[in-house]
């Protein structure tokens, strides 16, 4: 299987007045062709910044300070803005979290779609319009011809997200970065969109980075999972294996936090404490202060190690009980 994207030791820092915020601090992962990577973590764990770093849209005071972002072998971390612009929306597309905010409220849908086509290809307006209409049809928007002439506010949230996805699909990108695209939607709409995306990824060979905090979405959609905490990946591996037998205490806590019918009547489980401020990360493991297994060893930062075949975790005291050798 060929590799679409390989991220090596990515560090994106924000240089604020209060200090340096290490939003992404040494993240590495690979996404193969047609593969879906689920990037999971709490708010502020650096998932979104990782996504923006890949397409070079980190705004000042933020900046990629270290690492390589290899897209088909080409390092995007050192690419210039013009080169990145030709990749964005063309070979790497992004879908945002809030469909209410991603479409420009004062421009018609056709304007916003046609400009995307014309930004990367020299075709006639008429052809660009046809392609836009076909893309809308593909994501399941009824009577796309009429809908093209509508303004974003005339669509429901789910429909707007479909439009955003249609825009992302216009150039049949090799990689789509989806930043919590279904979080703001109803469960039923979420299901439809997930099914749609899964079908598209399978038929077009598009790779996906699916950023979310919703484990159930990842379970149904992703091939691989990477769990982020305080700017670092703390656990990674094949999605079924990780969810069945998580090794890192944070992943265990995250999965445990999902309310379950089997534990009815018991108080809901939670991870004690709060995500530490990225401005003042304590030395050693960032999860130390909230971890039931922490001891003196955790005062030193653990490395992300392959503890079992295909299973990586960043922990001195991993849960290895349920994991096969």
């Amino acid at each position: 299987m060929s590799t679409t994207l390989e991220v090596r030791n990515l560090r994106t820092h924000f240089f604020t007045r209060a200090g340096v915020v290490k939003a992404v601090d040494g993240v590495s992962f690979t996404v193969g062709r047609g593969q879906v990577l689920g990037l999971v973590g709490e708010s502020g764990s650096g998932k979104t910044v990782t996504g923006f770093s890949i397409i070079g849209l980190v705004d000042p005071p933020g900046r990629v300070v270290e690492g390589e972002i290899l897209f088909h072998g080409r390092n995007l971390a050192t690419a210039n803005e013009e080169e990145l612009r030709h990749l964005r929306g063309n070979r790497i597309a992004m879908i945002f979290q809030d469909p209410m905010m991603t479409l420009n409220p004062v421009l018609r849908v056709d304007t916003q779609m046609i400009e995307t086509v014309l930004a990367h290809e020299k075709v006639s307006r008429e052809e660009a319009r046809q392609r836009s209409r076909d893309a809308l049809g593909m994501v399941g928007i009824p009577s796309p011809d009429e809908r093209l002439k509508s303004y974003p506010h005339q669509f429901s949230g789910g429909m707007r997200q479909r439009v955003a996805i249609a825009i992302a699909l216009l150039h049949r990108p090799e990689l789509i970065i989806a930043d919590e695209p279904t979080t703001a939607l109803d469960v039923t709409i979420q299901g439809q969109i997930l099914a749609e995306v899964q079908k598209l990824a399978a038929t077009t060979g598009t790779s996906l980075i699916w950023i979310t905090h919703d484990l159930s979405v990842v379970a149904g959609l992703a091939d691989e999972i990477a769990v982020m905490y305080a700017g670092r990946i703390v656990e990674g591996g094949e999605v079924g294996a990780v969810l069945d037998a998580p090794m890192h205490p944070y992943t265990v806590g995250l999965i445990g936090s999902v309310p379950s019918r089997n534990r009815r009547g018991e108080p809901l489980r939670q991870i004690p404490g709060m995500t530490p401020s990225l401005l003042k990360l304590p030395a050693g493991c960032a999860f130390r202060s909230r971890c039931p297994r922490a001891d003196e060893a955790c005062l030193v930062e653990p490395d992300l190690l392959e503890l079992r075949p295909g299973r990586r975790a960043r922990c001195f005291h991993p849960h290895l009980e349920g994991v096969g050798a």
Partner: protein
Amino acid sequence: MTVYLLRRILQSLMVLLAMSVIVFVGVYAIGDPVEILISPDADQMERERAIAALGLDLPLWQQYLVFLQNALRGDLGRSFVFNEPALQLILNRMPATLELAFGAMFLSVLIGLPLGLYAGLKPESIGSRVIMAGSILGFSLPTFWVGLMLIMVFAVQLGWLPSSGRGETVQILGLHWSFLTANGWSHLAMPAFNLALFKISLVIRLTRSGVREAMLMDYVKFARAKGLSPARVTFVHVFKNILIPVVTVVGLELGSTIAFSVVTETVFAWPGMGKLIIDSINVLDRPVIVAYLMVIVLMFITINLIVDILYSVLDPRVRLESKA
């Protein structure tokens, strides 16, 4: 749309009516024009004849009803001083003021929008800091002082521009316009800039804050994620959004520019309505004051209506029917 317009027109008539009552009573309360208009050495007979001729012998409410009756026929009374129809007097002066006001608004958009856009896109640059500091001056320096300084520099010392009057005018549709001649332009330049200074600062600040806000919006980031050129993101995605507040404020300011061009007109001896109203207030020339305010109110109402309609053109989310 039709229902909406009818409703607006009805509202406007109510505003006009209320305004006329307030002004009528207000001017009556300030003082008695008789004391100013009739020479002190006139005898009692002459006085009474003059008072009766001006219709000032009736009680106030009757005076008002007479005024209202005439107003319905389009007659807003005759000036006590000039003995000409007040409306005619005002309309004769209007082109000069309109020219000045539109010139000023044009300048404020022409200068304010690009500067504000630059200041919003590069907030940390030295250029932006200079622009913002300049806009504070534009806000805080008194208009009359800036006007005098302009005259001193450009008219007295450099001798580039004339210091007063309208210059040559061209007559179109029975009205005199000076913006059609080169000489007229040179007369218009300084007063228009003087009047525009405050608006330029306003437009700069409005545009800058609008741009800074829009740049943080997801739709701008999404537009960039689509691979659009920075120019397209700025001039289509950002620009169209900031036009909404700018059009609103510029539109509303147009009314106040017309109404309060008094200072600039006085400094530059610009023969407009502002000069007329100041003179009329001094001699309590009530018909002119009332007629002037009626015209101004009508202008405000019309401008507001136009702004509302423009607004719905710019912002598809606004539908006028829903407000009616």
